[in-house]
């Protein structure tokens, strides 16, 4: 690899042992690269890894309003499951995550395939499908909260149009409110899947498709045998990103339902925030945060590992 070759040649030139090329300037030039990265690395050690360690330690203590450092062991990890709100949060995350990922993928892929049929005004349509990704989840939540409010939103609009039997009050129904969050989240993120899949579709070699077409392959077969296998890495990337978004979901829930009605739409992120800043239970806040991190790490670390390995070969 050229980069390594240059680096090792340079190391040989300057003599890593430090003999010969003395002087502050020479030393500085040799180590400048490390010095430049050092502040960021130090920040990462403290603000990423040091803070994670601190949170892990707090999760093993009985901290309430203020951090205490008396280790009580893994009690919190057992006791947290006795809280119905945490149970609700985990169930919601699972339900929300599956629906959000599935629907965003399906809609995003559908839009990408439709847009890939030599469409006029493709640029404008793409812009329209993707713009929600540029705005804040708080804005999205505010807009949908209002649209879904039965007294003034879509339900009232349908009644005004004469369809008086129309009922759409999910947002006030503890059993259905979580689906309103799915709806708003899919509205926001599906354009992102569309953009990724469309970019991948454009990268598929036209010649291969033409050849297959000439050989009499059907469109379905071309998709199944050529296109989908070629763009499969993008599906993986999109899935990882969506899963990551799902686990971190916080703003949208706060703006759309504020975790209500009651605690019906709690998710782990709102649980953690509530325990940390409203209920003075630092122990449970830290415990829930560590479990979120562990979930993300279980997905991301193998993904990054395989990405960096394949990147090296390329």
């Amino acid at each position: 690899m050229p980069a390594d070759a240059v680096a090792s040649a340079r190391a040989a030139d300057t003599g890593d042992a430090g003999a010969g090329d003395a002087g502050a300037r020479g030393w500085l030039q040799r180590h400048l690269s490390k010095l430049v990265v050092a502040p960021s690395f130090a920040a990462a050690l403290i603000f990423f890894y040091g803070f994670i360690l601190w949170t892990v330690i707090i999760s093993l203590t009985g901290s309430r309003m203020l951090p205490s450092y008396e280790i009580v062991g893994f009690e919190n990890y057992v006791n947290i499951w006795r809280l119905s709100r945490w149970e609700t949060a985990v169930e919601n995350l699972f339900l929300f995550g599956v629906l959000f990922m599935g629907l965003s993928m399906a809609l995003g892929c559908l839009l990408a395939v439709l847009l890939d049929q030599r469409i006029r005004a493709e640029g404008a349509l793409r812009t329209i499908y993707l713009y929600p990704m540029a705005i804040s989840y708080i804005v999205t939540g505010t807009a949908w909260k209002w649209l879904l409010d039965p007294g003034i939103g879509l339900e009232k609009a349908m009644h005004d149009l004469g369809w008086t039997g129309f009922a759409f009050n999910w947002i006030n129904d503890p059993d259905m409110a979580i689906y309103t969050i799915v709806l708003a989240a899919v509205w926001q993120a599906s354009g992102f899947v569309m953009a990724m899949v469309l970019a991948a579709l454009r990268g598929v070699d036209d010649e291969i498709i033409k050849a297959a077409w000439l050989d009499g392959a059907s469109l379905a077969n071309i998709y199944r045998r050529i296109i989908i296998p070629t763009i499969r890495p993008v599906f993986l990337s999109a899935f990882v990103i969506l899963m990551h978004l799902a686990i971190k979901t916080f703003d949208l829930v706060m703006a759309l339902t504020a975790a209500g009605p009651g605690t019906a739409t709690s998710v782990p992120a709102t649980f953690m925030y509530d325990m940390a800043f409203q209920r003075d239970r630092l122990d449970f806040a830290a415990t829930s945060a560590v479990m979120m991190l562990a979930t993300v790490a279980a997905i991301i670390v193998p993904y990054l590992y395989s990405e960096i390995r394949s990147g090296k070969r390329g």
Partner: protein
Amino acid sequence: MANLPAQAAADTLGARLGRVALYAALGLFALFYLMPMLVMIATSLKDVEEIRSGSLLAWPQSVSLDAWRYAWSEACIGVECTGLAPYFRNSVLMAVPAVLLSSLFGALNGYALTKWRFRGANVVFGMLLFGSFIPFQVVLLPMSQTLGFLGLASSVPGLVLVHTVYGIAFTTLFFRNYYVTLPDDLVKAATIDGAGFFTIFWRIILPLSPSIIVVTVIWQFTQIWNDFLFGASFTSGGAQPVTVALNNLVNTTTGVKLYNVDMAAAIIAALPTLLVYIVAGRYFVRGLTAGSVKG
């Protein structure tokens, strides 16, 4: 495609119907994405009476910018009735330095990690990269303690620090992935001519970087402007960014609910990132995909 003309002639009607269905589907989806924004805009231009009596989907009968003015300079957020303006300013004062600082660090890191590789450079990169995936809940508690310790609790400079630190992971990823594609010979030739680390960065690398700078700046600006978690966790009262103020405004329950003001406020909060997206959408898309594909 020799057999295509015959085929096309055979099912012209079918093909044409197919195209009509295709465009109809695309149009319906466009409506689904546009509808909330259109309804928000229309509502923000109506007065309260018209919202109550008229249809959600109707365009305002008399366009009025009163709600916008009220949202900007008079609406009550908590107990302060200052409108969104001061919070909007907080967001600007938070986002601009944080975007610049994190992008600068990212560019230098990316350059050092690819063109002046040292032992352990990959480990350093991996550790920074993982930072871009951390659920921030895991750093909220120690960060709020640290900000208090530094005397930056509930302040805009505190938010600048937080966004810079957690932005570096992303910016380093962006620049590193871009610089890895630049030929190493550029740097090698310049070192032989006696140029040093910063001279090469300034004279050779930066002039090749406008596109990745735009991608990074847009990505960082969108992330930082739209942040809610850090703003809600680390600030209160007058130091809040616009997203937190918007959420408080909408959830303030005293008095009559002014939906037109809520909608105007939401659009105001969304406007900067929306403008960036409309002006530089191409780069925005590249940021989205660059943030996800390939290490």
